[in-house]
């Protein structure tokens, strides 16, 4: 009996040691980013590295702990382009997640609760687009968008990502289990079909909508490739582009680069810690069309 208890304890210790080691691996770089954004380049690359920002490394007297953030925002030419690009990222990500939710829920509802000719074919056709990776169609998509004269516009950045096949799939699966009696009862009461969608279907699919909206927001927030193609003027660029450009120009100013990365991460970090259950739920499903 004693032997058994001893064995369990060893296993438990091993489990905790491994879990904490992995925790250190995932969290350390993030903590590094946070502390380094308050440091001088000299301290960031000091040997050995000290984890507490210190004034003694500062090369100039007028430097403060927030100099990095100032540089990150003002860039090279004292022009707060960062805010403009942040705004662009927010506009694109918010519009895309809103439209994805609306269009996918409409389509999912239509496919789940109505019987019309061709619905199986439509569903299969939409599902088959999940097999087309964005990276394989970006060149023709670029030609489509430039043919519509939407290069360097919000429309060009937003419209190609307004729907997601995975979103349609998720909404359909969710609504299949929704009791049709509620819908029929509303019909008997004389509620119109769009009214049923807005007043009954939408309010009752909140969990899927939240997961879907967050997934779409995150994908667009992280999107670098498509803005690289369509957003060409400085004023139209997004945050990932800003960071890429910043790292090119300020390669030797590591502190400013980390401040820039930190600032760019704040919206997602806030969103993550306040809505983590939707993130972790959304992770359990396959995001096939990440782009």
């Amino acid at each position, binding site marked *: 009996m004693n032997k058994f208890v001893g064995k369990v304890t060893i296993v438990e210790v091993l489990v905790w040691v491994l879990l904490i080691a992995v925790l250190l691996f995932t969290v350390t770089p993030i903590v590094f980013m946070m502390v380094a954004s308050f440091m001088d380049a000299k301290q960031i690359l000091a040997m050995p590295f000290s984890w507490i920002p210190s004034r003694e490394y500062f090369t100039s007297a007028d430097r403060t702990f927030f100099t990095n953030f100032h540089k990150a925002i003002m860039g090279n030419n004292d022009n707060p382009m960062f805010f403009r690009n942040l705004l662009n990222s927010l506009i694109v990500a918010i519009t895309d997640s809103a439209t994805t939710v609306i269009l996918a829920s409409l*389509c999912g509802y239509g496919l789940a609760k109505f*019987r*019309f000719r061709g619905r199986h074919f439509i569903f299969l056709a*939409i599902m088959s687009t999940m097999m087309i990776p964005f990276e394989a169609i970006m*060149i023709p998509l670029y030609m489509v968008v430039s043919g519509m004269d939407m290069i360097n516009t919000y429309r060009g950045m937003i419209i190609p990502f307004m*729907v997601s096949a995975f979103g349609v799939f998720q909404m359909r699966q969710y609504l299949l289990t929704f009791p049709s009696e509620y819908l029929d009862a509303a019909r008997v009461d004389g509620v119109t079909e769009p009214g049923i969608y807005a007043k009954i279907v939408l309010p009752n699919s909140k969990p899927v909508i939240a997961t879907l909206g967050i997934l779409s927001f995150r994908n667009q927030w*992280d999107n*670098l*490739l498509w803005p690289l193609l369509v957003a060409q003027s400085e004023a139209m660029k997004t945050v990932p582009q800003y960071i890429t450009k910043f790292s090119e120009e300020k390669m030797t100013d590591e502190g400013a680069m980390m401040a820039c990365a930190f600032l760019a*991460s704040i919206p997602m970090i806030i969103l993550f810690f306040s809505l983590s259950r939707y993130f972790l739920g959304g992770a359990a499903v396959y995001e096939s069309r990440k782009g």
Partner: protein
Amino acid sequence: MGRKSYSIERKQAKWGLIFTIPCLVFFAVFSFYPIINALLTSFTNRRAIARTSEFVGFENYVYIFTKDNGGFPLSNSIRATLIFTIGTFIPMIIASLIIATFLMQLRKDKYRGFFQLMYYTPAVLSSVVAAAIWMIIFDPRGLMNQISNFVMRTSGVDYNWLVDSTMLQISTMMIYFWKYIGYFVILFITGLASIPSTIYEAATVDGSSRWHTFWKITLPLLKPTTAMVSIMAMLQCLKTFSTQYMLYQGGSSRFPIDVITMNIYFTGIRNGRLGRASAMSIVLFLIMLIFTYIQLRLTRSSEDVEY
């Protein structure tokens, strides 16, 4: 009576179609048309600036598979992509399976939730932020060399994380691994949680040790999840772009990490060779189609599993 309900159904069916049409139009314009267009463009010599477009047959395909494309041949891109994919997803699957199994050993849900949250945090940061952080950690005077020197018991050795072509490839794998490990841990936890606890109880009653239970019960029952997650990880790795692009912009050499997506971007957008880039896109599409086909086969068989 029969006639009336029939007309109500027809009226309803009309609404079903109305609800699905907006989505369908989008998919037609932004998914089906582009992939067909990519196929057609891949047989032309279309260029971005000249705006000429003539049919050239398989010339682009012959070109991308035989010529060196200005020093960055497709063969190298396929090599870089496959090395990155294999080097990332195999360690990722093994590590996330082990971590998920260990997490399931925790007695309190509260602790498990905390670890999941912390493991997932890197996935929330954007890929460029991840690359930016690691570029500084991989600096010759940076944290990674200090840690490596400490672990390897050397002093002052520069491991050339972003310079040496082998190390550069390992660095991209490490960044990707770091970013997505939490995501795959959660996928495995979902799979593990779906195994009924009665099976474990029966095993404990029969006197099976934890080690034995893991090998004889957990792993076989987790096989469908493992297969599905591996293919998913593979597909994700095949599409990698941001990490490699960011490191290249940061001053690393392009050749060792010139993955297919990066080659498409440079050939099509930077050099304006839309025909050649489209041919590369079709190659990428076919590679991913094969993997998706395998995934569908495996997912279907996983649904047949009964406990």
